């Protein structure tokens, strides 16, 4: 059972209080109806699934109820940082292993952040 720091509760809490909510920084297009089939599929289904630093969403569902983002190493399961929903994706370049290859299959712009305030 992981120990996860909730950026709203400002402390570490047991994983049982949390619900993972998948990859972070997926952008829901606006207007979404004009998005191509390929880009929409990429948004809906195609995932980085990295072996290494994973940017992911969690909800402190049995705690404060808030969604937030986390950077976790998917090999060691260690959390590197957590940050509130809407905050920019932190620069983890120093910790990153070799940068992921550019992805020629999908044409969309690099994913930035999920929340557009």
């Amino acid at each position: 059972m992981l120990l996860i720091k909730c950026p709203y509760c400002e402390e570490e809490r047991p994983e049982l209080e949390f619900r993972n909510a998948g990859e972070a920084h997926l952008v829901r297009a606006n207007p979404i109806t004009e998005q191509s089939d390929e880009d929409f599929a990429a948004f809906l289904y195609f995932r980085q699934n990295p072996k290494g630093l994973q940017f992911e969403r969690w909800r402190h569902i049995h705690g404060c109820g808030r969604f937030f983002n986390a950077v976790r190493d998917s090999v060691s399961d260690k959390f590197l940082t957590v940050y509130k929903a809407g905050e920019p994706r932190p620069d983890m370049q120093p910790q990153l292993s070799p940068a992921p290859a550019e992805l020629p299959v999908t044409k969309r712009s690099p994913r930035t952040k999920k929340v557009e305030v």
Partner: protein
Amino acid sequence: MSTSTHSGSNRIHGAGRLTPAKTVRFTFDGQNLTGLEGDTLASALLANGIHLVGRSFKYHRPRGILSAGSEEPNALVDIERDKSRRQPNVRATVQEIYDGLKVKSQNRWPSLTFDVGALGDVFSPMLPAGFYYKTFMWPKFAWKSIYEPRIRAAAGLGVTPGEPDTDRYSNRFAHCDVLIVGAGAAGLAAALSAASTGASVIICDEQPEAGGALRYESAVTIDGQPGYEWAASAITKLRALDNVTVLTRTTAFGYYAQNFVGLVERISDHLSSPALDMPRERLWQVRAKKVVLATGAIERHLVFANNDRPGVMLASAARLFLNQHGVAVGRKVGVYTSNDSAYAAAIDLKNAGIDVPVIVDTRDNPTSAIVDAARSLDIEVLTGHAVFSAGGKRRVSSMSIQPTRGGSERKVAVDALIMSGGWTPSVHLFSQSRGKVTWDAANERFLPGTYAQDCVSVGACNGTDGLQATLDEGLAAGEGRTSPIVATNGTEWTGGMIGSAPGAGADTSVKAFVDFQNDVTAKDVRLAVREGMHSIEHVKRFTTNGMATDQGKTSNLHGLAIAAEALDRPIPAVGLTTFRAPFTPVTFGAIVNHARHDLFDPTRETPMHDWHAAQGAAFEDVGQWKRAWYYPQAGEDMHSAVNRECVAVRNQAGIFDASTLGKIEVVGPDAAKFLELLYTNPWEKLGVGRCRYGIMLREDGFIYDDGVVGRLAEDRFHVTTTTGGAPRVMHHMEDYLQTEFPHLNVWLTSTTEQWAVIAVQGPKAREIIAPLVEGIDMSNEAMPHMSVREGKICGVPTRLFRMSFTGESGYEINVPADYGRAVWEAVYGRGKPLGLTPYGTEAMHVLRAEKGYIIVGQDTDGTVTPHDAGLTWAIGKNKTDYVGIRGLLRRDLVANGRKQLVGLKTVDPTIVLEEGAQIVANPNQPVPMTMIGHVTSSYWSENCGRSIALALVIDGTKRLGETLYVPMPNGVIEVEVTGMVFFDEKGERLNG
């Protein structure tokens, strides 16, 4: 030499720490025996001269007691308190005896001494490692009918209890600054040190008492006290501290991410009559800021021919039995060693008056003082020699000794043979913590290398040799107390032998056991290598070495060394099997703990549940909820009860408990805007006091949930969801609100359980409830279908919805939940004379199907769009965004050939289709048939006087009027495709 016979003929007077007066009676295979309080079953059996305690897994060879701890592979027994509390596969070396203990041996038939299964030993040349992969293939059918059942019957150790377990198990989540695993010298030093800092400390040990190796180390002193007494006083000191929790009989079995460690505490297995409330075991789930591993080391056996004979055991075990329990493992004890430690055992035995004829040492020139000490006691020491074989069958009777480089054989008669192949640091938990071990080539052992968590290993498990160094390391790890703990007479034991001993090498075909329980011999390991198993994982799986219930605590390193030798590669290149949790087997009961019986899963009941039960309702499980299914009256079966309920609703009125429906209060100035984005329907223009049926999609365009939404105020909506959908709909809404639309000023509150919901449906509904209602004009004009009003009913606040899931004019009365039962009874009391009939979920399903109303999850299955379900009308035509709008535009979701929801009427109206039945266009085609749809809902409709069904059919709406077929095992059923409404097609009754 004098003995105390009433607790066993091998009890040595003056030896050990048990009190001779405190005797305990127990039975072994029906034989009445006596031991002493504080005995393990192993020590008590040995005290009574019993070595043969079990049979091995594959060859059913007679087996004795190898060890004195949890690493025991052989001495597994069955212990029975009563029929419901019988425990198979108990290690005799761990089980403490209590008065009345009943023990049976396992894996033998008809008896331990005469076991038919031992024929396996005779045929063993035909049964090398992996033999089953090479045979039992012909004839083809025979594997299932002949070979496999026989193999299954022969395999397995103990027998599962026949009755459900009446013991209780408990759980405790705990947090601490420092968790210390092991209360030997290293662990105690660490605990004393950590405790001195004020840190919260948990120290656990699998034994009943602290001390670890100090329990048998007879010579050492610590801080001036004998080692064992120092340990006892240290643990007493620790127990007295507020910031320390001491857990004995507690095994740390699993080391998980972020310093989360699972412990299991055995609470009552050692008690003759446990207290009523006492759990048998308690799971501790500990989160520690720091973990100190002080898990010690495990002595290895030596791999030589017939090293599995009862009476052949680890030297340290013999020493513990003597020094702790006062038990001599034999009268004439041979010693076979490859390192110094067995000398200490020999010396202790000799000093206790036991005949120790010879110490056989594989080393050519051991130089330690302890060797001379043994010689000075007139023990013969044969260096450069090896035991090539043990004699005897059900008990060792002799040892055959040869020089390691070959030479003449000498046979020495013994009744026990103790051995030491050296010590394997116990790195199991370290490895489980994802630490990486390193190979210490000089001492041929794996040691903790790179740590993955905030954890430190101290003492023998860290390869630290010598008591003083161990204590120093423990103190340092605790990061407190600076004053040293001083030890004297500590011993240093490195070295030893891994792999096969002389005489069991590759050129031999003797049975030299590596893994006792699974009957893996050195030659099995070599065979695996010969067959191409070059990774230790392959060797392990092919031979099953290390896969028995002891998880290879004594065998893994031997197996690895033999494989490395056969491969002519260095040990690290062959690899080390990773250690998997649990360290020792853990009962399911402890892991499950409270979650049994009523606490397995919550049972959710509505405020009116007891009323339904009192009326004799049958209940249906819907998720965690119990819902009233139907209310059978005397003599009624389900079918007739449901028919009666359905007719009553349409003719008079019915009352239905709808409390389980999910409810969410959506409040804020942007509430309507938010609902616009979450539902396909338009909401901005919904008037206050009006309701609308809403469809919710996932982003992929498929139906996720549905429900009626009422607008209570400009900024306040009462949203309902399906029963099962309530939590996920709330989560889904919060997700979009918090992360996609956080600019909206709106909040969501679950009110599912705030309201009891009483549906009253049918032509007499208004007549029944109107007199109970205050402050609401219930006339058709003032309160039309699909409206909501707030007022009072029976004097309590209500949100009164006029809505219908039956097609009848009806209401759903929401009242604060604690009033639900009273209001229900009031309504029922008033309505009963008018024919008001309680109806359950089954009738509800029939009534809604008569009207073609869908049930999400039954008529839809996560692959159905609103268009497929005939709900295109519920999509706001001018909306530019809602969750699912883009998904619905995908190629395949707008293509022809989708399955669409339609009605089905069987040509024979008396036939009720089976839900899930498949539909074909041509019933005469051969299998595999082309299926074009399936029945989602199907009922007998008493109101229609015929069966009705809903179905998802490819291009269904284009097939209205077509005849299709439902091929069933007993024949084909002809059906007509129809619209979805079977009753009151114009919907006139809603407004009655």
